[in-house]
């Protein structure tokens, strides 16, 4: 009898749920998430909504950076495009059910425009081009007063979907939760499909990919579009969550944060985005508790603790890159492999 999991055909290898055990855990997890609003405090529900939004955004970035290997330092700007598109459309009386996908589509279009340089650029140069995209979009948001409200920002009218009003935090949580699950399913299936294999081929060796017949530019542009679409949806949700949006919610720092979450979670792993976002938010909560306590204990040194967050996150990024460049997803896999055969590891 085989002691372990052995695949006998490609179809089995590509299955989403390798064992019933994984499936059971996943269902348990989803039920726990769905029941969460009944037990969690208002504050925790808000945080979980933020987590869900970040997960959608990170899935998008993971497609672009993790699977296609194109570094993007302008992801938050695409979130901004989505956020403003959705909010402006709602303001003009477009129903939410249309405004939400339009946010994604608009972000995808803008993303494709800034993806055009990827025709000629790779690696470093593309990363710099996305920095430029970040600044140009941010500038547009800040200065197009008549449309975006400029520096003062704009109020977001809550979206209405049938009986649901998303100014209710719990209903917004469910919307985010459902969309995050859908996003995860979509990304998993993109990766399993033809386009996903093309993405990975381009990432690993784009010349070889071109030689075997992958249309490199088409798939690069496509990954920009898919990634920005996710970002647009996440942005629209973020706008609903924040209720007032300004350009300050979509700066290069947020872009770096999203990239950091992806790296900590594991670039090129479907679950990487989820692990990374989880790690990031848990660390943030811990820091919040620690700094509040420190502030009350040493009120004379408040300035010291303000910057702790930046330093800790910076250290987290640097240490992860030095010691675990493949992120938590890879670490999890190693741990699982170790325990699978424990205590007889040979």
């Amino acid at each position: 009898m085989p002691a372990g999991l052995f695949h006998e055909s490609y179809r089995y290898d590509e299955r989403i749920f390798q064992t019933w055990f994984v499936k059971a855990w996943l269902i348990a997890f989803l039920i726990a998430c769905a029941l969460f609003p009944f037990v969690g405090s208002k504050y925790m529900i808000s945080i979980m909504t933020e987590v869900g939004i970040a997960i959608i955004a990170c899935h998008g970035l993971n497609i672009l950076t993790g699977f296609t290997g194109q570094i993007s330092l302008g992801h938050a700007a695409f979130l901004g495009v989505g956020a403003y598109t959705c909010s402006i459309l709602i303001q003009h009386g477009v129903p939410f059910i249309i405004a939400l996908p339009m946010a994604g589509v608009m972000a995808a279009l803008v993303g494709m425009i800034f993806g055009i340089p990827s025709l000629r650029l790779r690696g470093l140069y593309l990363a710099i081009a996305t920095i430029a995209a970040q600044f140009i979009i941010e500038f547009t948001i800040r200065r197009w007063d008549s449309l975006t409200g400029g520096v003062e920002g704009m109020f977001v009218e809550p979206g209405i979907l049938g009986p649901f009003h998303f100014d209710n935090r719990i209903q917004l949580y469910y919307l985010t939760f459902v969309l995050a699950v859908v996003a995860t399913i979509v990304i998993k299936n993109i990766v399993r499909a033809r386009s996903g294999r093309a993405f990975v081929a381009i990432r690993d060796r784009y010349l070889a990919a071109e030689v075997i017949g992958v249309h490199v530019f088409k798939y690069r542009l496509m990954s920009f579009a898919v990634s920005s679409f996710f970002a647009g949806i996440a942005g629209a949700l973020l706008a609903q969550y924040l209720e007032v949006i300004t350009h300050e919610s979509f700066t290069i720092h947020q872009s770096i944060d999203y990239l950091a979450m992806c790296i900590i979670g594991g670039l090129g792993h479907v679950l990487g985005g989820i692990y990374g976002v989880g790690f990031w938010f848990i660390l943030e909560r811990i820091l919040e508790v620690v700094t509040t306590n420190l502030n009350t204990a040493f009120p004379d040194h408040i300035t010291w603790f303000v910057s702790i967050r930046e330093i800790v996150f910076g250290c987290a990024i640097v240490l992860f890159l030095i010691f675990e460049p493949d992120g938590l997803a890879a670490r999890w896999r190693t741990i699982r492999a170790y325990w699978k055969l424990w205590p007889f590891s040979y």
Partner: protein
Amino acid sequence: MDSEFLFFMQMLLSGLSMGSIYALVALGFVLIYKATSILNLAQGEFLMVGAYICLSITLDFGLNFFASFMLTMVFSVILGLAVERLVLRPLIGEPIISVIMVTLGLTYILRGVVIMIWGNDIRQFNIFPEQPVDFWGVKLTYLYLYSLGISLVLLTVFAIFFKYARTGIFMRAVADHQTAAQSMGISVRGVFAMSWCISAVVSSIGGILVGNIAGVGVDLSYIGLKVLPAVILGGLDSILGAIIGGLIVGILEFLSAGYLDPYIPAINEVFPFIVLVLVLMIKPYGLFGTEEIERV
């Protein structure tokens, strides 16, 4: 001279002074990239740290400006060495994204440390006299003149250094071909460390100059990103390119502020980036950069 021309000259010369500072910072980028193929996105934070240290020594400890300038250089050398040794060396051979991201992680740490020590306020040097100097109608403040002067002197010094000094030649050799340089007995690690030191030093000089013009605050670090268009325009691995790119971007920034502002307010904030995108689309390796030619 008519006022139209005077206005143009005013913008041109201001741009030239600002551009010379950009050229210095761009030089910092290029030095590191040439030697180690790392784009140090924490350059702006190096600049900010330098400015803060100099300001702090001058204002809080009351040393004269020249002495604190020299002390700042010493700190920068230490900072450059520490970053190279502790953060970047473990990452040799890792993919580009790791290296980019680690320098971004560094920006968080440096910014956090600066806020921890000096707080969030913008502070002024107030060392150079305020009243402008008049050159046949074109008014420039002493600050701009000094910046232009210091930058031009430094750029010349570096040009001579790379041409004739032993270490400079070593650095060029390593940039050209690492293994060949190593087999000639050049310490590649030494050169890496040297590049980081020089880069940290020139960026803190740039930081002190910009800090004098705009005040010292955390936002100073944005200069690092603003210089990227200059670096790309000149070519990532060309020292001459960095200098010319820096000057061009500085001039473009001021000219766009002067002429396009009535149509799109504050366009100068983003104009260099628009140029950047265009350069990347048309001539991605810049004016003087080495083109990567790929064959199957």
